[in-house]
């Protein structure tokens, strides 16, 4: 019996690696045709925040010892600029050489897939352990390898492929979001804090993930299956892939595991350390160009005040192109509050399912953010 399952898992693993490699190969092939596909300039793929062309403009300006933010072209983080900038400088003879970007995005995509897999694994394990403790070991064997599936879905998602081949910086942001969730689900507070800090530094919106991360760290992954206790028969019928759905049907009876404050405090400590670390690095790189205030104005200020009205897949640009100047501030507040408004009710409602909570947060912010692109829903899809 045990041998069989081992064999099965091995086969599954082999299949996973095969598919993962295939997706990487596809990306490499597509990136060779990137000139023809011209994806990097599609408004669906690259937004003013993530466009690599803008990044290389910022890098070029920095090379000329000007502020990378002068000229409202570049709105990313200065750290990203110093990491990715040298890669984007063009080679004169071969034309613009964005191939370097691929070398960054491929591993970031791949590693985020691996992280998803690991997260899924740990979720699975926790789930299985709990079922076993309830004496339902045979149920565990029927569970699909959700981690592998999620990772493959992420890798084969057309949105992620497009955003990887289209050279924008969002795969990196996605990787840090996943890293933070992985860290939280495995209980490694420093890693979770690191992922969270970097992700919010890059694109501001992952800031709301602090709640699911705290819940994950505090309660651990074990929280959900407790609730199956009272309505066991329901859980039997529904496939475990839709664990989230069950939670809507089942009410929390009581909290069996206590909230571990120690880990949360560790998380905040680490988050503080990482924040100060990131800010110091930014301050060093921005020292000659107006310091941190300039950076905050040009990155977060740009996100919040929707200055660029070029079209993207969101609704805000057209709205703000047409709305009367008098009401602009009002609507800015309304639209941003819409994202924040749902945080608390959702947190109360889904506090026993932090992973699902994180998923909902990501989905909401990817729809309502000011410069959305197809790459953001890809995270929440998986």
């Amino acid at each position, binding site marked *: 019996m045990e041998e069989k399952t081992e064999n099965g898992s091995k086969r599954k693993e082999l299949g996973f690696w095969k598919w993962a490699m295939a997706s990487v190969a596809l990306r490499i092939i597509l990136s060779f045709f990137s000139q023809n596909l011209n994806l990097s300039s599609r408004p669906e793929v690259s937004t003013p925040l993530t466009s690599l062309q803008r990044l290389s403009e910022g890098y070029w300006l920095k090379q000329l010892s000007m502020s990378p933010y002068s000229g409202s072209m570049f709105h990313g983080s200065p750290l990203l600029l110093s990491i990715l900038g040298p890669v984007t400088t063009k080679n004169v003879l071969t034309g613009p050489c964005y191939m370097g970007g691929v070398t960054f995005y491929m591993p970031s995509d791949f590693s985020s897939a691996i992280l998803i897999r690991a997260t899924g694994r740990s979720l699975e394990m926790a789930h299985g352990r709990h079922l076993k403790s309830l004496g339902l070991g045979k149920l565990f064997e029927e569970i699909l390898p959700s981690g592998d599936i999620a990772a493959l879905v992420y890798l084969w998602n057309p949105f992620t492929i497009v955003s990887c081949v289209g050279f924008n910086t969002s795969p990196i942001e996605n990787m840090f979001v996943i890293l933070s969730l992985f860290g939280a689900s495995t209980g490694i507070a420093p890693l979770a804090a690191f992922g969270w800090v970097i992700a919010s530094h890059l694109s501001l919106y992952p800031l709301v993930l602090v709640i699911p991360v705290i819940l994950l760290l505090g309660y651990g992954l074990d929280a959900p299956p407790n609730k199956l206790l009272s309505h066991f028969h329901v859980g039997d019928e529904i496939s475990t892939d839709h664990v989230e759905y069950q939670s809507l049907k089942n009410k929390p009876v009581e909290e069996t595991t206590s909230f571990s404050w120690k880990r949360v405090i560790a998380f905040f400590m680490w988050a503080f350390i990482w924040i100060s670390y990131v800010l110091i690095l930014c301050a060093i790189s921005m020292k000659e160009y107006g310091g941190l205030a300039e950076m905050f104005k040009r990155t977060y200020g740009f996100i919040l005040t929707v200055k*660029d009205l070029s079209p993207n897949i969101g609704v805000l640009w057209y709205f703000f192109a047409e709305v009367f100047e008098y009401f602009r501030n009002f609507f800015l507040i309304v639209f941003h509050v819409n994202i924040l408004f749902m945080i608390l009710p959702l947190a109360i409602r889904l506090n026993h399912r932090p992973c699902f909570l994180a998923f909902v947060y990501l989905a909401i912010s990817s729809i309502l953010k000011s410069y959305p692109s197809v790459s953001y829903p890809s995270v929440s899809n998986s």
Partner: protein
Amino acid sequence: MSILKLYLLLFLVLLSSASESIAEELEEEFTEALLLRPLPDRKVLAHFHFQSSAPPTQTYGRHHHLFPKSIYQLVHKFQIREMELSFTQGRWNYERWGGYDPISSSNAKPPGVELWADFDVPQHQVDDSWKNLTHALSGLFCASINFLEHSTAYSAPQWSFRSFSGKLRYGTLPREAVCTENLTPWLKLLPCRDKAGISSLMDRPSIYRGYYHSQRLHLKSDEFATSESRTGIVLEQSLTVVLQPNTLGSGGTFSGKISQPSWSLSSLFGRKVSGKCSLSNSGNVYVQFEQNLVSQFNELKKHSETSKNEILIRDGFQSNPLFELSLPPKRVIKEADNLQKEGSILYEFSVKDYDESEPFDLGLRWKSPVVWSCQQAPLRASRFLLGSGNERGAIAISLKSTRSNNLLKSGCNEKERWLKVGIFQVVPWYVKVYYHTLEVFVDGELQSTMDNVEQIRVSPSEDKVSPGVMEMVLRLPCSVKTAALTIEFDKGFLHIDEYPPDANQGFDIPSAVVSFIDFLANISFDDDSLKKVPILSKLQEKIPVLSYTEVLLVPLTTPDFSMPYNVITITCTVFALYFGSLLNALRRRAGEEERLLKEQAGRGAGPLTLMLSKLSAKLRRKTWEPPQSSSSFSRSSSINYKLIVKVILVAGVAAVWQFYFQ
């Protein structure tokens, strides 16, 4: 004692006479001049030049009888060091009308309005001065120069556009229409307006019928300089027109070649000059024959009678086989050129000697056909757009070598063998230029950009704040045939209020200025006394060869102007839908409701109690246990009681809050 008094008196007299002589030197002056030049493509260039000058205020005072008061006030109010305003209609044809002479370098202007000014104020006041100046000028000249007030419309070039300190501001309005309403206030600045003197030639229909029309006002003052030798304010007004003479009459053909049309002032302008403006110091008319044309004469002469160049100069106007001037010139001025064999020739006529009874009507009659070409700038600059669609595109500036190769070599830097080309380009902010995509092609081959760029300064555009400015000096090999410069841009989107009327026509990118730094456009004369004549001293001024490129028209995507409400309402509806459905999903508990319904069906309890219990369950976020039918009423009443207490509590808190804050 008496001797001492005498000495003192003598000294005083001497002093006063000395001061008088100084005052005499610095008088207000006004001169008028007209320069006529036949152009190779059977057109005639007429260049009116008026110059008035006022001595410095310190020695002369603030009252003038010739110098326009409005300009004086302008200079003093805004502390202008130098300013130039030009209204232009049509485009100067550099290939046919020349690109190397002083007139094309300083009077060929981009279409529409161009204004630049250099201020003598502290750095932080420059922008304010500029804004006020644009408003003042727009009132003075009946033009929409005040559109240059906004910071997106003007730029501050550092070194490429005339070498000045950082107090220079530059702005253009390419779409400004120029007509008589701009000319009339400009004429008002002249002491005789267009009633007498050379300016009486300015017959509106004939001037505006021309192919090119540019009225220019140049102002230079050293009122605020601290140096001793000050000249005061010099106001230079010039009108450059390119006219097509009527070819009726003598415009025949000679042996297959089309001859140049003969013309006279009365046929060109429909008017004659009756004497000079009595307030002007001098009123001269010049007819200029270009260097290439003169060399053509000489060749013809050699063929016919092998005479020397000198004959042409001495009695050329009568015995010339090529052309005939209807009036005898007062003087013939020859360009002293040490590089070429022949220089251009100017025939000077004085209007002073003519009056009402015998008006001045100069005519030029061609005797035999002649073909010549104008002197060209070393490289011919043109600019165009690349790409299609409303998303992005590219600007290309192409520089093509003109045929005059000997000229190219003479101007080339001898030591380094490089040809330096300065480019100054202003791009409005909604054309978002990626400066890192700058590519330089020399003879069709892509160059490593920084090899050919000697100096570059970029100030990128800021959304809704400032335009993008690119100043660069290209260094091209002397043997260059073609050079091109491309730069990519994205087309931005504007807010609905920012679109001008008729937005579908497109947006203009102002002309780029291409300057050839090592080439000087000037005509030098041997006679030093000629420097006192303003128009001739202007021709002798050493200025680099300048040319303006075409204005580009960029179509931008326009939003739906008619229905902003629709967009607002539909977006709000989408948001409301999202919000409502999410709230609904949050509040609903499917299993609970099912049970509730079952309960309701099985038990005939009153709807009020049921609702209340449901509400309380929701409030407490707890399991709503199926109530025992026996105690249902009592429970519900207790819930009711609790609810009332809660409501009262909240009301009490609110009342206390109110009270406390009042």
